């Protein structure tokens, strides 16, 4: 385990724990942002530049802002939460342990560990771009259509509300 990996791992895990346990919702959201950045750093240490930068652009630039907006607009940012422990947390811990056990069991028994490690395929940004524009053009178009539809839907919902108010 290299030193950068250790630093990033500790930072990511610590901020993830903080995101779950802090009292103030906005602090939780900011801690979650650090987790996102840690994940991006992981991708970068694995030489996956495109995924790493896209992670920063999408998660820190958009998703974190969205979460923060949602907290502020629903008045959740004003009052600190009463307590972060409840009856459901016990169930949550149980589910988390079960999922962790299942995943680690699968990983430990998988053939990837017994096989010899092949050199990872080179995935430069140029190759990803060529693949997206060539072989995977149809999925890309479909995703684009889906997102456009969602965008138009959001605009429609917002517009209808405005018309109701004016009546």
């Amino acid at each position: 385990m290299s030193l950068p990996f250790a630093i990033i791992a500790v930072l990511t895990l610590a901020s993830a724990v903080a995101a779950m346990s802090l009292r103030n919702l906005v602090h939780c959201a900011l801690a979650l942002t650090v987790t996102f950045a840690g994940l991006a750093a992981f991708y970068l240490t694995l030489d996956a530049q495109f995924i790493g930068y896209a992670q920063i652009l999408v998660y820190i630039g958009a998703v974190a802002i969205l979460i923060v907006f949602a907290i502020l607009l629903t008045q959740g940012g004003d009052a600190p939460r009463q307590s972060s422990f409840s009856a459901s947390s016990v169930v949550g811990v149980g589910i988390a342990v079960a999922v962790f056990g299942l995943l680690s069991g699968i990983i430990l028994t998988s053939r990837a560990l017994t096989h010899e490690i092949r050199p990872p395929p080179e995935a430069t940004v140029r190759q990803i771009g060529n693949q997206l524009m060539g072989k995977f053009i149809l999925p890309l178009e479909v995703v684009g259509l889906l997102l456009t539809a969602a965008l138009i839907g959001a605009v429609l919902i917002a517009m209808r509300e405005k018309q109701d108010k004016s009546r």
Partner: protein
Amino acid sequence: MVETTDQIFVILKHWLLHSVPDQWQPLFSAVLSVAAIIVTFATLFAITTLLERKGLGRIQNRYGPNRVGPYGLLQPVADGLKALTKEDIIPHTADKAVHFLAPLVLVVPVFLALAVVPVGRNMAALDTDAGVLFFFAVGAATELSVFMAGWSSRNKYSLLGAMRAIAQMISYEVPLILAAVTVIMAAGSLSTVSIIEAQAGYWGVVPRWNVLTPWGLAGFILFMIAAAAESNRSPFDLPEAESEIIAGYYTEYSGFKFALFFLGEYLGLFAVSGMGITLFLGGWHAPLAWLEWLPSWFWFFAKLLVLIGGFIWVRGTLPRLRMDQLMGLAWKLMLPLALANILAAGVWRFMPVGAGRWIVCSILVVVPYLVLGRAFAGRSQMGKRVYRFAD
């Protein structure tokens, strides 16, 4: 001789690198590049504050700073000393940790963004395969800092300013990136160095810069408008708007933290202008072939200062936009134009070289602009201004 002056900083760096043992060289190289970026752009920041105050003074028919040093040239030093010695006030109700971290979260990504901008031949601190993507990715982190500053101050004006800033930055990021996409399409690369290489050479005497094509010109204008909005410059300075909401998200900052915000804002302006130069103005290439004896870094900073001068001029000339005008400009005018521009860039790429593609691409750029502009101008019913009381 020309070669030496052009590469003087690169040679200097190599010479310094050879003075340390081999295993320390990668680290020392990184430290040298970072130090060069910090020193150069912080100095440029000092010069720009003075230029801006002088320029705005002239536009507003006053002198501007002229007390410290000859012609007020030492004013940035005085400003810096003032910022360092002022009391650092944190509001009683403020969220202390977030309030402290916000300026750092602004300044660090901005310096990172400057790393991918090549300031001269062989002078990009970080020449990565996905340079442009890196630039926009770290630029997105500054929105978070604005929110942190606005929210942690526990001040209505701060929060209003932060909300305005985030809405504005998210809206203008769309045309900013879409305008940059045209260049990426033309160069076929996300690396800033290869984008500049793609703009080398001349058509006769005219340099092969992207700005000198129909889609490039439209893209450059869209990019610079969006850049002004991204860096909260006038006429898009609603988030600060000292006459409406005091100073927006940095109302509650004083002393050196305020100076850091100020620095971050200007460095963001340099970074996005530098990216504009890289994408559209040929980077460090000379504008004319017989001017190539001047070093490449000179041309980069000359272009940067011209763009900054433009920003100062615009700030002194245009009034601030209203919030609905701001959003309308981004979503109704700039977004469709940027999309039409991408189409024009694609057509330009696949049409044979000649007058034909000039005509087709110009039509593809100008017609949407005219149609959209006329449509919105007709609806807003702008006519002759009527003075009701001061006739």
